[in-house]
């Protein structure tokens, strides 16, 4: 029994770490900038195909792609911010949402044109093997993806907490006008923050592609998971996002072990509904300044 519980916990923690980075970029962009980035999953999809192309064409291991994705998607995010989001600063929130939705549809359709809807998998040398500890089988690929996710979360946490830019970003999220009057270049910081959010989505896409099959039109499922983590963890807080990811992962594996499997997602969605009811005002505050 103990062995069974340990297996559940290990799997739940690793899954939770992966869910956490799927939601991290969304949480930061929504919490700090007030942008409901529904195109987040499209950038996750691009991250998955970034890893796929590097693996298939150049034989680059997804672990390396994970780190390569950070600067590449950061630049992509800043370009998207400059080209699209700066034009939407003064439009109504609903129009901004529609624009982001349009961006999601555009990226997904371009993805379908380039890669078709064929199912893809990345199988690296460690994908099908496991680490066996006291009779527990822990998939190496999940362990690696979990460690990468934890490292990324730690880097973001440290960046926002200890660097001058990070503090400025936090100041901007608390009071944009006060930050401006204190001489903070809000436009530059917003561009950087959005770039970081997209970098996080790209890296999450790589981590997800290491573990799960994917295609341009299936990655949208991660948007629901990302929102689940964000809503549970609150907005713009790295540590809370991590904890929320871990709760979702552990809850999923516990329910899978002790309930009929088809109840697992019901439990998760009931949790989502409960959190939405109980923490509604937190969300409202964060999206008040939404694009």
């Amino acid at each position, binding site marked *: 029994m103990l062995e069974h519980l340990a297996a*559940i916990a290990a799997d739940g923690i690793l899954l939770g770490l992966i869910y956490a980075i799927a939601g991290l970029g969304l949480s930061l962009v929504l919490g700090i900038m007030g942008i409901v980035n529904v195109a987040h999953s499209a950038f996750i999809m691009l991250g998955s195909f970034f890893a796929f192309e590097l693996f298939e064409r150049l034989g680059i291991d997804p672990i390396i792609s994970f780190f390569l994705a950070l600067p590449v998607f950061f630049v992509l995010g800043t370009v998207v911010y400059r080209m699209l989001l700066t034009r939407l600063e003064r439009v109504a929130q609903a129009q901004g949402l529609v624009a982001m939705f349009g961006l999601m549809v555009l990226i997904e359709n371009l993805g379908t044109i380039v890669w078709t809807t064929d199912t893809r998998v990345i199988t690296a040398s460690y994908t*099908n093997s496991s680490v066996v500890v006291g009779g527990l089988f822990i998939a190496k690929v999940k362990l690696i993806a979990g460690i990468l996710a934890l490292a990324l979360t730690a880097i973001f946490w440290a960046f926002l907490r200890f660097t001058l830019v990070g503090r400025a970003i936090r100041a901007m999220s608390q009071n944009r006008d006060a930050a401006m009057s204190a001489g903070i270049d809000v436009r530059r910081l917003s561009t950087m923050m959005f770039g970081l959010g997209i970098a996080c989505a790209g890296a999450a896409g790589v981590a997800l592609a290491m573990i799960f*099959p994917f*295609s341009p039109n299936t990655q949208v499922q991660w948007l629901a998971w990302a929102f689940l983590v964000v809503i549970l963890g609150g907005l713009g807080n790295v540590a809370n996002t991590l904890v929320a990811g871990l709760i979702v992962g552990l809850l999923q594996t516990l329910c899978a072990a002790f309930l009929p499997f*088809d109840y697992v997602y019901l439990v998760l969605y009931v949790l989502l509904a409960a959190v939405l009811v109980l923490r509604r005002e937190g969300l409202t505050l964060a999206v008040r300044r939404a694009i």
Partner: protein
Amino acid sequence: MMGMVALRSGCAFGLVVALTIWGAASAIWGAASAAAQPSPIVVGGTLGLTGSFAEPSTDYKAVYDRWLDEINKKGGLLGRPVKMIIYNDESTPTVAQSLYNRLLDQDQVDLVLAPYTTFIGGAIVPIMLSHQKLLFNGGFVGVNIFKNAKGSIIGSYTYQEPDYTRGLFELIKGLPEDKRPKRVAIFTAQNPFPLVVRDGVGGVGGAINYAKAAGAEVVVNEQYPPNTTDFTGLVQKAKAANADLVLELGLPNDSLQVARTVQQQGYKPSILCTCGSQVTTLAAWPKLGSAAEGVFGTTVSWPTQGYQGLAELADAFKARGYDTLPTYAIVGYAILQVLEQAVEGAKTLDQQKLKAYIHSNEFKTAAGNFRYQEDGTPVFSQVVLQYVNGKNQVVWPKQFQTAAPVLKAP
């Protein structure tokens, strides 16, 4: 001055007369040409060329184009060229419905092809029946849909949902007693199609009934929602229950992930069958690496069986970069072979006469030599494949075996 006017009027008159004669001549020439060139027979249908079903739909389209090219090179059907109209239904039932109305009412197609998958196909069947047209269906299965259409849907899938696991259990029955799996775990996607694969219809067929008939106990019977991402919990349940036969009745993405998770969990059931879809014939399967090895799957036919046009079809897909021949390609081509042989055999496009001909004759196709049952489905046939050393091998039926089944030691 008057002379100039008269001259101009004369020229104008001459020009008008010349143009009239040229126009009349062109019209007569055109009509003669049209009479010499018979009007084409129009075959129409839809495919989800974008959206969720674009992957298989693209394979169908490649097969349709290939057949169209072949048939027109052979001189068409009934001495008339063949034209094909395939609209994109965007993998959406409502779009498909309006497109089938357009095909039947505006385009007035002579022969109708089904779209891909039961989700779309089920939605357009009432339109077909109300227009009293036959539906040449290489796109979907659906035992109840066929029954309700009373033989007006002509299929090329050689087995329907309740029989998806039938071949596997026939194979198991043929194993020595001590090698037969005794404990079964079934994972089923919450989707009407795999649920019928599991439960059968009216107590007939279905994995549970076949397992019971084979003397095996179902120790895990779980269903999962379509958006399930992680299958570790399911696989751990089957492993804890010592199931030696695992049936994954889901769609390709789920099946790929289940096979990978089984490997990662160090779980070695005697048989793991991805019997809910023909995923082992898809391009993604070999990419799974060692997790793909030893897994069983089912399909309608295999190039080694030598059915009409099958080897050539496999070569054509190899040229398109496919390691293995997708089932969609086989059934898509087979239905066009049935259509071709039926029209040429019955020498008519009359739907009732075609139906009568189809139900009383045999057809040689890439999916097998068909005889049709009353409901419009071909008589059951199936092959069970096992993926061994990077290749699919036929392990059942025995007469078509290319390799003996390899059962994993627990």
